[in-house]
């Protein structure tokens, strides 16, 4: 039986053939087997070979995480599955667009905090801003949290993309 039942989050990179239905296969596997998806991103990364890279953040006991990786690897159009959380240091980034509406003090404060977080203003009206903020989940979360009292009206996030540190490819 599982010796360790602590639930941990893992960031998993999956290199797949970019063919119809591939995302449904991956998502269906998670829903069908009752695994969690905390975040999922996907886009083509190699047009010549028609390959996409999926980054999944999932949670589970070590035995479940092992299962998730084995199940993913078993899908016919999957080239490789890597658990970035266990395979050495890696970097995670996400991007959020944050819309804030307000005037006067609040507007100035929002802009000041955006500067601290190195968020870019990508749209501005006399009573609103859209900020683009990138960083790890913590930073993005904190920034959004701060905007709440300053007139936050809308947020959209990409979910996490991740990569190992150093010169090795996936």
């Amino acid at each position, binding site marked *: *039986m*599982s*010796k360790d039942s602590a639930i941990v989050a893992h960031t998993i990179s999956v290199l*797949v*053939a970019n063919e*119809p*239905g591939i995302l*449904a*296969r991956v998502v*269906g596997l998670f829903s*069908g087997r009752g695994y969690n998806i905390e975040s999922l991103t996907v886009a083509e990364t190699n047009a010549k070979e028609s390959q996409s890279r999926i980054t999944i953040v999932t949670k589970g006991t070590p*035995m479940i995480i*092992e*299962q998730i990786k*084995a*199940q993913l*690897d*078993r*899908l*016919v*159009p*999957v*080239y490789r599955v890597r658990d970035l959380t266990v395979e050495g240091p890696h970097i995670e980034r996400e991007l959020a667009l944050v819309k804030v509406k307000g005037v006067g003090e609040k507007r100035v404060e929002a802009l000041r905090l955006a500067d601290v977080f190195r968020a870019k203003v990508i749209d501005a009206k006399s009573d609103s801003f859209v900020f683009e903020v990138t960083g790890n989940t913590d930073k993005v979360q904190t920034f959004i949290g701060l905007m709440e009292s300053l007139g936050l009206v809308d947020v959209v996030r990409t979910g996490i993309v991740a990569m190992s540190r150093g010169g090795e490819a996936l």
Partner: protein
Amino acid sequence: MFRRAAKPPFCGTFVMKEIAVLKPEESATTGADLLVKALIDEEVEVVFGYPGGAVLPIYDSLFKQNRLRHILVRHEQAAVHAAEGYARSTGKVGVVLVTSGPGATNAVTGLTDALMDSIPIVCLTGQVPTHLIGNDAFQEADTTGITRPCTKHNYLVKSVSDLARSVHEAFYVARSGRPGPVVIDLPKDVLMNKHEYVAPPKVAVTHKSYRPQTQPDPRKIEQAIEMIANAKRPVFYAGGGIINSGPKASKLLTQLVHLTGYPVTNTLMGLGAFPASDRQFLGMLGMHGTYEANLAMHGCDVMINIGARFDDRITGNLTKFSPGSKKIHVDIDPSSINKNVHVDLAIVGDAGIVLEELLKAWKAKQPKVDQKALKAWWAEIDGWRGRNCLAYKPSKQVIKPQYALERLYHHIKDKDHYITTEVGQHQMWAAQFLKFEQPNRWMTSGGLGTMGYGFPAALGVQIAHPEALVIDVAGEASILMNIQELSTAAQYRLPVKIFVLNNHYMGMVRQWQELLHGGRYSESYSESLPDFVKVADAFGARGLRCDDPAKLDDTIKEMIELKHPVIVDVIVDEKENCFPMIPSGAAHNEMLLGPDDKQSAKVSEEGMVLV
């Protein structure tokens, strides 16, 4: 693994470029003709199918040739089960052809069954023309969507130029690694468009992304040998993976077991992997397994699992499962490893290849087994054997189902025979009372437990082995689920024998209701049964009935002698329960041995929610 004779195991996407293709005008044929050609190149001999609008072009192509034999079933579910029986009894890929919409949805149960039991199937489904996909067109269903979770892989072929390649790839995927069902969805326009043929590649190539691991890590073989050699209370636990690997794996398993002198047990799916009459065989293990097999599993110090998946019918209560053992697990599918049970040594590879390596290493090392410990272990096992756990109370008044199977076995054992089953008590009694000396002789629905599997599966077996005696051990409830296939049996003169153990109950359900639900037999009585003898007659088969233990032998002999499909309605004891039984949620050493045991066992609340 499933291999074609003298054919490379694979074709990959990029390879196709390396193959000289004829110019369209020289060889262009319709998609349907290409499909038939591709099937022939994959050495397909039989297709089990049912026509409809979307696959009419394929039926037209079939009409114009005589290499492929088409067997017309009476329900698409039966087509898949027949293909499963064909596949399991031959080691080849079973092929199914159904139309779009209802044809495809009817096949879903069969596909799921094949997925759960790792049976190699290629199922061709018709689809509405590409320009109508998504329009709720007539007989449209999202077949790739519906079958995604119940296939190993599936394809929607959108262009005739991809057709032949997809077929070759599908066969490779179905038969290699852990075998399973593959669906190819074929829009009607794709079947009618023209293109040149693409043959399977001449040389083996690797698939771009799918690469099952068949060769084990040599270091792990060393470690395994050490663990096996140092065991004091070992047990081999061998499953369906041995059958999947091919008959050679069974031979090698038998050699290794003999060389070590260790005991061996088989799962329901593994029956026949090791000869049942051998002294080292403990019988089947699990929920309805033998006392000796389950206690050996519970008390062993080294468990050697080869090609079995620690199914819940085997492990019972996971926290109490074989608590003191080191476990070795050999499996071709990494996702089977550490799924339910944490193991100490995992070897990913094909069972046959791993067994070959283990044997080589064992012979080279000649390790000294602790014979004293082994002798003591066998003495303990023989003590358990002495309980004679399959014993039942004989009767002169009523036919006991166990007696019926003992007599059946007596009459068939020297004949070339194959057994299939439906699902229920009769299936478990068949597993306990019929002896399997060879692989590929036993076809049963283990993982999905599909009532209605056995009869169509038997038809598939009979097609593959026309001279053999093929018997479906059935229950009176299960047989009604695909009884229409009597018409198929009649059409093709398939002399399959349906041996119905008629207890007038969904016996397995009744047993659980007796043991777990206070004897409230809710909806489990087989009310308004047809007269099976008349049913047989109506379909042009032969019907026999027996309710007298004294006449049973004669009935069985008559059944065997008839060169027709036969239903034998054997009226058996209604109240008989299947023992031994490990109640849900209990451990191996908490099994019920017989009816008098039931008071002592209290099924826990956790056990009650389990199935």
